[in-house]
Structures are given as C-alpha cells and as structure tokens.
C-alpha cells in the first residue's frame, strides 16, 4: 500500500513538472509558428515586414488590431548593436521591444520622442557601443528579440502618409563598436 502511494506521488510530481515545463516553453512553440509564417529566421537585424491594417485574411498573429499598422524588426545584438531610425507621425505611434521570450521590456511612444524623429541604439549585454550620439539607448535583456512598431490609423484619412512613415523605418547593425 505504501509502495503504491509512493509511486502515485512520484507520478503526480513528474506530471506537475511536465506541466510546468509545457507552460514555461509554450511561447517558444508559438514563436516558432510566427517565425515560420513571417520568415523571421531569414531576416535578422532588418525590417521583417510592414503590414496594412489587419483583415480577415491576416494570419500569423491571433487577435490582430485592424486599427493599427504594424512594422516588425527582428534582432540579434549578441555581437553588434542595432540602430533604429524613423520619422514619426503626429498621431499615436509606438515602438515596443520584446525579448526572445516575448516580454515587453521597453515601449516608447510618440509623446516620448523629441523632434518627431526616433533614433534608438539597441544594445546587448555584451555589445555596448563606445559612443552614441543623439539617441536613446535601450538594453535588451536577451541577445535576440523582436521590435514592433504600431501606428494608429484613426479614421483612415492619412493611410498613405502612414505608409510613407513605414517605408522610412530602418533597423540596421551599428558598426562603430
């Protein structure tokens, strides 16, 4: 009887550990699907994609917003920082930084940016640049991750202007290190 109880407790313990592992790494599987559908693995340290507002054909991300235009950069700052530049519109705009486990560790919006022009140095723990000028430094807690830019389309009157802002986005490696 004792042996049966002991075995049951061990099985429950292992089951609980497996459950915790599944929950802990569930996002890895979802990111794998996202990377595969967007081609993120082949487009590191560059602009991965710009989107129009989401439609019923939009896949890859669940519950997309149809009131926002997105731009996505993927990054790897293990050896070199990334420099992100773009002019920003007068309407709501934000840039959000996500570590490789999808944590949103920094968000800047249009009210945080002076002169309507964004210049961010995204650095890794071991890839700090010698000098930076006229920009904001953001430290990524992981070597890899994602950058998501959101632009509110409002009543849709300035869609073309917002697309022009999208096209001006640059995510490139910073070589002065």
């Amino acid at each position, binding site marked *: 009887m004792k042996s049966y109880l002991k075995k049951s407790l061990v*099985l*429950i313990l*292992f*089951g*609980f550990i*497996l*459950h*915790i592992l*599944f*929950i*802990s790494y*569930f*996002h890895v*599987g*979802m*990111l794998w699907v*996202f990377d595969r559908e967007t081609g993120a693995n082949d487009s590191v340290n560059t602009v991965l994609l710009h989107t129009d507002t*989401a*439609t*019923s054909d*939009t*896949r890859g*991300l*669940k*519950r*997309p*917003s*149809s*009131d926002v235009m997105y731009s996505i950069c993927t990054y790897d700052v293990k050896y070199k920082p990334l420099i992100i530049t773009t002019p920003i519109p007068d309407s*709501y705009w*934000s840039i*959000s930084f*996500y*570590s490789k*486990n*999808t*944590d*949103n*560790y920094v*968000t800047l*919006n249009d009210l945080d940016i002076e002169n309507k022009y964004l210049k961010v140095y995204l650095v890794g723990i071991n890839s700090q640049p010698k000098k930076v000028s006229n920009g904001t430094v953001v430290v990524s*807690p992981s070597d890899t991750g*994602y950058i*998501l830019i959101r632009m*509110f389309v*409002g*009543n*849709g009157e300035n869609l073309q202007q917002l697309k022009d802002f999208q096209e001006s986005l640059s995510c490139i490696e910073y070589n002065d290190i």
Partner: protein
Amino acid sequence: MIIIRKYIIYALLIIGIAVAFTYLSVPIYKNIVFVKNDIWSSVPSLGDPKRSIYTRAYVATYGLFALSKPESVYFSADHDISEDSLDGSLCYILSGNDIQSASVSPRWWSLTVYDDDGYLVESSEKQYSYNSENIIYNSTGNFEVYLADRPTGNIQNWIKTPTDGLFSVVLRVYQPGEEFFSNLKRVDLPIIEKVDC
C-alpha cells in the same frame, strides 16, 4: 519487454497527469489573475516582464506581442449581460459612453470582433472594428454598435459577426493613465445585450 511496457505506461500516466494539471490550471488562473468588470475581463499588464509563466502562455495563445502598463490595457468579452456566450446566430447591441469623455482620458480606444479562432470575421465592408475616431456617436455623445451577421437600418455602427459559431469582442484602451489602471474593476465600460434580429 515487460519492463519497457511498464515504463511506457508510466510515461503515459505522467503525460495524462500533466494534461490534467494544464486543464485544471486554466479556470484557476482566470479566477486569480483576471480583473472582472461586468462582462469584460482583463489582465492588467499582459506584456510585463514580471508576468507569470501562465500569463506568458496566455498571451502566446491569444496575442503573442502584448503591450504592458502604462501603454495599453486590453479587455475581452465573450458573453453578454445575461451571461450567455456571444453567438453569431444572434444579434446584439454594444452600447456605451465615450470612454475618452469619462473621468479618465485615454489617448484612443478601439472595439474589435474576433471569431472563435481569434481572427477577424470575413466582411465585404472590411469594417472589423471601430475606434474613438471613426465611430459615429449619437446626439448625447454615447455610441451604439450593432453586432450581427447583417446590418440593420437603425444603427450606423455595424460590425459583422460570424454567421455561425461563437465570437468575442476586444476593447483596447491606449495610454489610459494611472487612474484608469487603478480602477479597472469599476471604470465605465460598454455593455452588450441581445436584441431581436
């Protein structure tokens, strides 16, 4: 052979127990973490790096790249004020006060309808949502949105719902301010009620 079979049975039992824990954890998680406000439920800071592994898994399931406080808060409703699931074969009116004119003043907000799989509902009008700038307010400054699979002549704001199956509505509120975040349970949000089609 008998030993291998024994270990296979143990492995299957462990997987079964893990599935049971996962299945049981969903309602427990929702009861503990979700903030309820009438028909709406919300997790206050979905993208926060200090979130639990359960919140991270929840976000991965329903949105992947969520924002955190103070940038945005997301509310989700999958039932009406009678606590019945939102059903695409029925018709509803979502009505509320202008969220921006309340005591709190978010930067902007939007209401979006999703099908049971979390995707936008196919619509020839491509009107999947309304936001604080494109919604049509009535003379008192409030708004109504008709949620059904076909429009009605009475209400100008219409979002198509799936012809069959369940659906949900997500309310996004951007830069709502600290007061809004500290009153998530009490802040004045729209209601959804069934109407005759």
